[in-house]
Protein backbone atom coordinates (compact mmCIF):
# COMPACT_ATOMS: atom_id res chain seq x y z
CA UNK A 1 0.00 0.00 0.00
CA UNK A 2 1.51 3.32 -0.94
CA UNK A 3 2.13 5.38 2.21
CA UNK A 4 0.56 8.83 2.26
CA UNK A 5 3.97 10.53 2.29
CA UNK A 6 4.65 9.65 -1.34
CA UNK A 7 1.61 11.51 -2.52
CA UNK A 8 2.66 14.52 -0.48
CA UNK A 9 6.15 14.35 -1.99
CA UNK A 10 4.62 14.12 -5.45
CA UNK A 11 2.42 17.17 -4.82
CA UNK A 12 5.34 19.06 -3.27
CA UNK A 13 7.44 18.28 -6.35
CA UNK A 14 4.66 19.46 -8.67
CA UNK A 15 4.27 22.58 -6.53
CA UNK A 16 7.96 23.42 -6.83
CA UNK A 17 7.97 22.78 -10.58
CA UNK A 18 4.99 25.18 -10.83
CA UNK A 19 6.86 27.80 -8.76
CA UNK A 20 9.97 27.35 -10.90
CA UNK A 21 7.86 27.78 -14.05
CA UNK A 22 6.18 30.93 -12.73
CA UNK A 23 9.53 32.51 -11.87
CA UNK A 24 11.36 31.72 -15.10
CA UNK A 25 8.87 31.74 -17.96
CA UNK A 26 9.02 34.97 -19.95
CA UNK A 27 5.90 34.12 -21.86
CA UNK A 28 2.82 35.08 -19.82
CA UNK A 29 0.91 31.99 -20.91
CA UNK A 30 3.85 29.94 -19.63
CA UNK A 31 3.24 31.46 -16.22
CA UNK A 32 -0.41 30.49 -16.48
CA UNK A 33 0.65 26.92 -17.23
CA UNK A 34 2.80 26.85 -14.12
CA UNK A 35 -0.04 28.25 -11.99
CA UNK A 36 -2.28 25.42 -13.24
CA UNK A 37 0.41 23.01 -12.05
CA UNK A 38 0.39 24.57 -8.58
CA UNK A 39 -3.39 24.22 -8.36
CA UNK A 40 -3.19 20.58 -9.39
CA UNK A 41 -0.50 19.93 -6.82
CA UNK A 42 -2.90 21.19 -4.16
CA UNK A 43 -5.65 19.00 -5.61
CA UNK A 44 -3.50 15.89 -5.28
CA UNK A 45 -2.90 16.75 -1.67
CA UNK A 46 -6.61 17.19 -1.03
CA UNK A 47 -7.62 13.94 -2.64
CA UNK A 48 -4.80 12.03 -0.95
CA UNK A 49 -5.74 13.37 2.48
CA UNK A 50 -9.42 12.66 1.79
CA UNK A 51 -8.58 9.05 1.16
CA UNK A 52 -6.08 8.51 3.95
CA UNK A 53 -7.90 10.53 6.66
CA UNK A 54 -11.25 9.08 5.72
CA UNK A 55 -13.38 12.15 6.22
CA UNK A 56 -17.00 11.00 6.02
CA UNK A 57 -18.47 13.54 3.58
CA UNK A 58 -15.54 13.45 1.15
CA UNK A 59 -14.52 17.02 1.87
CA UNK A 60 -11.23 16.63 0.03
CA UNK A 61 -12.80 15.56 -3.23
CA UNK A 62 -15.53 18.14 -3.03
CA UNK A 63 -12.96 20.81 -2.35
CA UNK A 64 -10.87 19.76 -5.35
CA UNK A 65 -13.99 19.85 -7.47
CA UNK A 66 -14.47 23.45 -6.46
CA UNK A 67 -10.75 24.11 -7.13
CA UNK A 68 -11.09 22.80 -10.67
CA UNK A 69 -14.11 25.03 -11.27
CA UNK A 70 -12.37 28.08 -9.89
CA UNK A 71 -9.24 27.28 -11.90
CA UNK A 72 -11.39 27.31 -14.98
CA UNK A 73 -12.90 30.70 -14.12
CA UNK A 74 -9.48 32.14 -13.24
CA UNK A 75 -7.84 31.00 -16.43
CA UNK A 76 -10.73 32.39 -18.47
CA UNK A 77 -10.18 35.81 -16.97
CA UNK A 78 -6.42 35.45 -17.21
CA UNK A 79 -6.42 34.51 -20.86
CA UNK A 80 -8.87 37.25 -21.81
CA UNK A 81 -6.61 39.80 -20.10
CA UNK A 82 -3.64 38.39 -22.00
CA UNK A 83 -5.50 38.61 -25.28
CA UNK A 84 -6.64 42.16 -24.50
CA UNK A 85 -3.03 43.20 -23.87
CA UNK A 86 -1.81 41.25 -26.90
CA UNK A 87 -4.36 42.95 -29.15
CA UNK A 88 -3.23 46.30 -27.80
CA UNK A 89 0.55 45.91 -27.73
CA UNK A 90 1.41 42.72 -29.59
CA UNK A 91 3.80 41.76 -26.76
CA UNK A 92 3.51 38.75 -24.58
CA UNK A 93 6.77 38.87 -22.74
CA UNK A 94 6.80 40.00 -19.15
CA UNK A 95 9.65 42.49 -19.63
CA UNK A 96 7.37 44.32 -22.07
CA UNK A 97 5.00 45.26 -19.27
CA UNK A 98 7.03 47.83 -17.32
CA UNK A 99 4.92 50.90 -17.92
CA UNK A 100 4.37 51.38 -14.25
CA UNK A 101 7.50 51.17 -12.20
CA UNK A 102 9.21 52.89 -9.25
Amino acid sequence: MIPLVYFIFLSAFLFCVGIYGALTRRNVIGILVSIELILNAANINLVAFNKYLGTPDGMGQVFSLFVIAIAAAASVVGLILIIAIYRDRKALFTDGFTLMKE
Partner: protein
Amino acid sequence: MGDFVFYFIALCTCVFSVLAVTQRDIFHCALWLALTLMSISGVYFYLDAAFLGVVQILVYVGGIITLFIFAIKLTAHMNDTSIRQTSKQWVISVFVTLLLLLVLFKVFARTSWAEIILKTDSTSINQIGLSLMTHYALPFEFMSVILLAAMVGAIVIGKEKK
Protein backbone atom coordinates in the same frame (compact mmCIF):
# COMPACT_ATOMS: atom_id res chain seq x y z
CA MET B 1 1.26 -4.81 -8.65
CA GLY B 2 -0.70 -1.73 -7.51
CA ASP B 3 2.47 -0.07 -6.29
CA PHE B 4 4.15 -0.44 -9.68
CA VAL B 5 1.21 1.31 -11.33
CA PHE B 6 1.48 4.22 -8.90
CA TYR B 7 5.22 4.57 -9.39
CA PHE B 8 4.77 4.62 -13.14
CA ILE B 9 2.03 7.26 -12.97
CA ALA B 10 3.99 9.40 -10.50
CA LEU B 11 7.08 9.24 -12.73
CA CYS B 12 4.99 10.27 -15.77
CA THR B 13 3.50 13.20 -13.86
CA CYS B 14 6.88 14.48 -12.75
CA VAL B 15 8.56 14.11 -16.14
CA PHE B 16 5.66 15.63 -18.06
CA SER B 17 5.34 18.57 -15.61
CA VAL B 18 9.04 19.37 -15.92
CA LEU B 19 8.75 19.22 -19.69
CA ALA B 20 5.58 21.36 -19.64
CA VAL B 21 7.53 24.07 -17.88
CA THR B 22 10.84 23.99 -19.72
CA GLN B 23 9.79 23.63 -23.37
CA ARG B 24 10.70 26.48 -25.70
CA ASP B 25 7.59 26.29 -27.88
CA ILE B 26 4.56 27.39 -25.88
CA PHE B 27 2.27 25.10 -27.88
CA HIS B 28 4.30 22.06 -26.83
CA CYS B 29 4.11 23.27 -23.27
CA ALA B 30 0.34 23.25 -23.44
CA LEU B 31 0.40 19.70 -24.79
CA TRP B 32 2.76 18.51 -22.11
CA LEU B 33 0.51 20.17 -19.55
CA ALA B 34 -2.41 18.14 -20.95
CA LEU B 35 -0.39 14.97 -20.49
CA THR B 36 0.52 15.93 -16.93
CA LEU B 37 -3.13 16.51 -16.12
CA MET B 38 -4.08 13.10 -17.55
CA SER B 39 -1.45 11.38 -15.42
CA ILE B 40 -2.77 13.27 -12.42
CA SER B 41 -6.26 11.94 -13.18
CA GLY B 42 -4.60 8.54 -13.16
CA VAL B 43 -3.39 9.32 -9.65
CA TYR B 44 -6.95 10.19 -8.74
CA PHE B 45 -8.19 6.87 -10.09
CA TYR B 46 -5.54 5.20 -8.02
CA LEU B 47 -6.86 7.03 -4.98
CA ASP B 48 -10.37 5.64 -5.60
CA ALA B 49 -11.52 9.12 -6.65
CA ALA B 50 -12.98 7.91 -9.92
CA PHE B 51 -15.45 10.75 -10.32
CA LEU B 52 -12.72 13.30 -9.79
CA GLY B 53 -10.49 11.62 -12.37
CA VAL B 54 -13.22 11.82 -14.97
CA VAL B 55 -13.97 15.43 -14.09
CA GLN B 56 -10.29 16.19 -14.33
CA ILE B 57 -10.09 14.83 -17.82
CA LEU B 58 -13.33 16.32 -19.01
CA VAL B 59 -13.10 19.77 -17.47
CA TYR B 60 -9.46 20.37 -17.05
CA VAL B 61 -7.95 18.73 -20.04
CA GLY B 62 -10.99 19.14 -22.24
CA GLY B 63 -11.92 22.64 -21.18
CA ILE B 64 -9.02 24.61 -19.78
CA ILE B 65 -6.30 23.20 -22.03
CA THR B 66 -8.41 23.89 -25.10
CA LEU B 67 -8.76 27.41 -23.76
CA PHE B 68 -4.98 27.62 -23.58
CA ILE B 69 -4.57 26.39 -27.07
CA PHE B 70 -7.10 28.90 -28.30
CA ALA B 71 -5.15 31.64 -26.56
CA ILE B 72 -1.86 30.41 -27.96
CA LYS B 73 -3.24 30.24 -31.45
CA LEU B 74 -4.79 33.71 -31.14
CA THR B 75 -1.39 35.09 -30.23
CA ALA B 76 0.20 32.87 -32.90
CA HIS B 77 2.89 34.97 -34.49
CA MET B 78 4.59 35.49 -31.19
CA ASN B 79 5.61 31.89 -30.99
CA ASP B 80 8.84 31.87 -32.96
CA THR B 81 11.09 29.92 -30.67
CA SER B 82 14.10 32.10 -31.38
CA ILE B 83 13.20 34.55 -28.55
CA ARG B 84 14.70 33.54 -25.26
CA GLN B 85 11.89 32.03 -23.21
CA THR B 86 13.36 32.15 -19.76
CA SER B 87 13.73 35.35 -17.80
CA LYS B 88 17.18 36.64 -16.87
CA GLN B 89 16.80 35.56 -13.27
CA TRP B 90 16.40 31.81 -13.97
CA VAL B 91 19.65 30.83 -12.22
CA ILE B 92 18.63 32.30 -8.88
CA SER B 93 15.08 30.97 -9.34
CA VAL B 94 16.42 27.44 -9.68
CA PHE B 95 18.37 27.87 -6.49
CA VAL B 96 15.35 29.27 -4.60
CA THR B 97 12.98 26.59 -5.87
CA LEU B 98 15.39 23.84 -4.90
CA LEU B 99 15.74 25.43 -1.47
CA LEU B 100 11.93 25.49 -1.16
CA LEU B 101 11.74 21.87 -2.28
CA LEU B 102 14.38 20.90 0.24
CA VAL B 103 12.48 22.64 3.04
CA LEU B 104 9.19 21.01 2.06
CA PHE B 105 10.67 17.55 1.80
CA LYS B 106 12.56 17.95 5.08
CA VAL B 107 9.41 19.00 6.94
CA PHE B 108 7.10 16.45 5.33
CA ALA B 109 9.54 13.64 5.89
CA ARG B 110 9.58 14.39 9.61
CA THR B 111 5.83 14.93 10.10
CA SER B 112 3.98 11.95 11.49
CA TRP B 113 1.06 11.73 9.09
CA ALA B 114 -2.01 9.84 10.23
CA GLU B 115 -1.40 6.06 10.02
CA ILE B 116 -2.78 4.32 7.06
CA ILE B 117 -6.37 3.47 7.73
CA LEU B 118 -7.24 1.21 4.91
CA LYS B 119 -10.81 2.18 4.38
CA THR B 120 -12.96 -0.08 2.37
CA ASP B 121 -15.64 2.24 1.16
CA SER B 122 -14.06 5.03 -0.80
CA THR B 123 -16.18 8.12 -1.09
CA SER B 124 -18.56 7.11 -3.80
CA ILE B 125 -20.07 9.45 -6.31
CA ASN B 126 -23.45 9.65 -4.64
CA GLN B 127 -21.67 10.50 -1.38
CA ILE B 128 -20.07 13.44 -3.19
CA GLY B 129 -23.38 14.42 -4.75
CA LEU B 130 -25.10 14.18 -1.35
CA SER B 131 -22.52 16.36 0.42
CA LEU B 132 -22.46 18.83 -2.46
CA MET B 133 -26.19 19.30 -2.16
CA THR B 134 -26.39 19.37 1.63
CA HIS B 135 -23.19 20.11 3.49
CA TYR B 136 -21.48 22.22 0.85
CA ALA B 137 -24.58 23.78 -0.73
CA LEU B 138 -23.42 27.32 -0.03
CA PRO B 139 -20.06 27.05 -1.86
CA PHE B 140 -21.82 25.24 -4.64
CA GLU B 141 -24.29 28.07 -5.08
CA PHE B 142 -21.53 30.61 -4.71
CA MET B 143 -19.58 28.94 -7.52
CA SER B 144 -22.37 30.11 -9.82
CA VAL B 145 -21.61 33.71 -8.85
CA ILE B 146 -17.94 33.28 -9.67
CA LEU B 147 -18.55 31.57 -13.00
CA LEU B 148 -21.13 34.19 -13.99
CA ALA B 149 -18.77 36.99 -13.06
CA ALA B 150 -15.92 35.35 -14.99
CA MET B 151 -18.07 34.97 -18.07
CA VAL B 152 -19.40 38.51 -17.99
CA GLY B 153 -15.89 39.76 -17.36
CA ALA B 154 -14.50 37.80 -20.27
CA ILE B 155 -17.19 39.26 -22.56
CA VAL B 156 -16.66 42.81 -21.36
CA ILE B 157 -12.89 42.74 -21.69
CA GLY B 158 -12.78 40.58 -24.73
CA LYS B 159 -15.20 42.69 -26.81
CA GLU B 160 -13.77 44.38 -29.87
CA LYS B 161 -13.36 48.14 -29.55
CA LYS B 162 -16.43 49.82 -31.01
